[in-house]
Structure formats: C-alpha cells, structure tokens
C-alpha cells in the first residue's frame, strides 16, 4: 500500500485508539453514575466481537462468495472445533490454536483425498 494512502489511516487508527484508552484513565477519576451508560459499556465488547466474528469467520480461510466452497467447509470445521472449547472456557491461545488445527485437518483431508490442489 502506498505510504501516502497508509499514513493518514495509521494516524487516525492510532490516535483514536489511544484517546479512547487514555482520556478515561486520566480524566475520569470517579465512577460513572448513569446506570444505562454503565450497562451499555458493559455489553459493548461482547457485541463488537460477536459482530466481527459472525459471519467474518466463515471467510477467514480466503473463501469468497462464488469461490471454492471447500474453503468454506474448512472454516466451518475450524469453527466447529473452536466453539465447544471456547464455551468451556479454554484459554485464548488454546482456542486459537485448536481453530487453526480444525481448519488444517479439513484442508489436509481435501488435499490427501485429491479433491483439492493448492
């Protein structure tokens, strides 16, 4: 990516991310009163991560609509491994690695049975 396009993006990302972290830590020194706002903030992380994961995870193997459906199958395999482990509270690293192994297993099966070439 050309630097003239990249640098404004980088500055905006870094600045916003930093201010969101820094301003509350330095300015807010008292607890928030509004129960609705506190509750809203409580649910935001879960809502954000959920919207980012579903349906994005289905495209994590490089599958595109109209593309190779076997890549979609691989992503679903990874998801099928990750969800029960995450549900049971396994660590971030464990779930991430297991998801990769799930994809790798499905992909390996396709390759070994000659149904797919990379």
């Amino acid at each position, binding site marked *: 990516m050309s630097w003239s396009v990249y640098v404004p993006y980088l500055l905006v*990302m870094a600045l916003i991310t930093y201010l969101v972290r820094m301003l509350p830590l330095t300015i807010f020194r008292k607890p928030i009163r509004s129960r609705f*706002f506190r509750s809203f903030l*409580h649910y935001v992380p879960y809502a954000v991560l959920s919207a980012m994961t579903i349906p994005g995870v289905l495209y994590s193997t490089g599958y595109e609509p109209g593309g190779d459906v076997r890549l979609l199958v691989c992503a679903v395999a990874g998801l099928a491994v990750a969800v029960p482990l995450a549900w049971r509270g396994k660590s971030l690293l464990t779930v991430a690695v297991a998801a990769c192994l799930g994809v790798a297993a499905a992909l390996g099966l396709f390759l070994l049975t000659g149904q797919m070439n990379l």
Partner: protein
Amino acid sequence: MQRGLFLRGLRHGVPIALGYLSVAFAFGITATRAGLNPLQALLISMTNVTSAGQLAGVELMAAGAGLTEMALTQLTINLRYALMSISLSQRLDGSMGTLQRMIFAFCNTDEIFAVASAQPERLNKAYCYGLMLGPWAGWSLGTVLGAAAGSLLPAFFRISLGIAIYGMFLAIILPPSRKSRAVRVVVLLSAALAVAFRYVPGLNQVPAGYVIICCAVAAACVGAWRFPVAEEPEGEEAPQA
C-alpha cells in the same frame, strides 16, 4: 522505581506476550493479504496494540474506506477500553500521576486489563510498566514475523492461520455468554444483525465499519435496556480474557 514490582509485572506479562506472539503472527499475514508491507503492519501493531481494532482497520484500508468511517469504527470497536480504563483508574496507587496514567493507557488491552484487575493491591507504576512491556514486544514481534514470513509460508499454513484471531474472539465472548443470559442475548442479537447486514440485499451495501457500529450499538443498547447491570460494577464487568 521499585525493581521487585517491575520484575513481577514483567513476569505476569510473559503468558500474555506468548499468546500475542501467535495471534499477531496471524494478524501480520492478514495485513499483507490486505496489501500492506511488513513495516506498515509493524507500525500499526506498535502504535495500536489491539487485535479487533487492527483487524477491522486493515480491512477498511483494503476497502479504501473514508477516514471518518475509520475513526468511527475504531471508536466503537475500542470503546470497551474506555470502560476498562475507567475501572482501572479506580485501582491505581499514588505513584500513578497523569503522565504515568498516559503511558500505561497505551497498553490497556483486554488481557493486560484482566491481569491488572486481578491484583489484590493497588497498582504501582513499576508493576504497570513491567506488565505492559512483554505483551507490547510480543505483539509487535509477532506481527512483523507474520507479515515477513507469511508470504513464504506454504498456502496450507496461511489458510489454516487465518482463523486464529476469530478463535481468540470466541474465547472472549463465549464463556460469559454461557454464564449470563444477558450477554448471550446481546451476542446473538449482534451476530444476527451482522448476518443481516452481510446478506440482505440493500443492507449489504452499508460499509463494513458502519456495520460493526450499528450492530454493536443496537445490541448493547438492548442489553442495557433489558438487562441493566447491578449497582456494584467495579472490576467485575471485564470480559474474561
């Protein structure tokens, strides 16, 4: 500066650093796939230190999004840090002046917040600096390795690693979803909205960054309206990470 506290922080950061190394490696691969070179990927990680925000960020870059969309997306995705920072601000000791708070805020990630919140005593600046160092280094190193070596990796590994970051997200949102019906409702609602924005004709024309904002704000508002959190919020409402 107290050497013992610094070393303790450093030690507590090691497992986080190792986890970040691998997830950042996957981010580095994603970043190069979106058209960034290794140095560009590294600079993002060194200055942002956040998985979800960076992932959305490079997607928006690849899509040629506007800077307003980028700013609003980062604001929404990273809004959770505001909550964590507010919570942490109640737990610092006298050594944490404004400058020290400004430095520590830079690395207030989900995992560092979780570890810092779990400390029984108030947080000293030496401990905070030690704690943030390893994860920051691991995150940066992993990114540049993934970006540089990712293109050398056989396609088999690149395809398999793409899901890593989503695995991490699932590990953050599913355990609280299991324990709390409120979180479960918010998570399912947000996912359902995201699916609608992806596949329903018309709705799928909305830019990716705004989709996350719409889903998250709507779902979190419904959560706050239907399931307001109890009066005693401090420290307990961190995502389990």
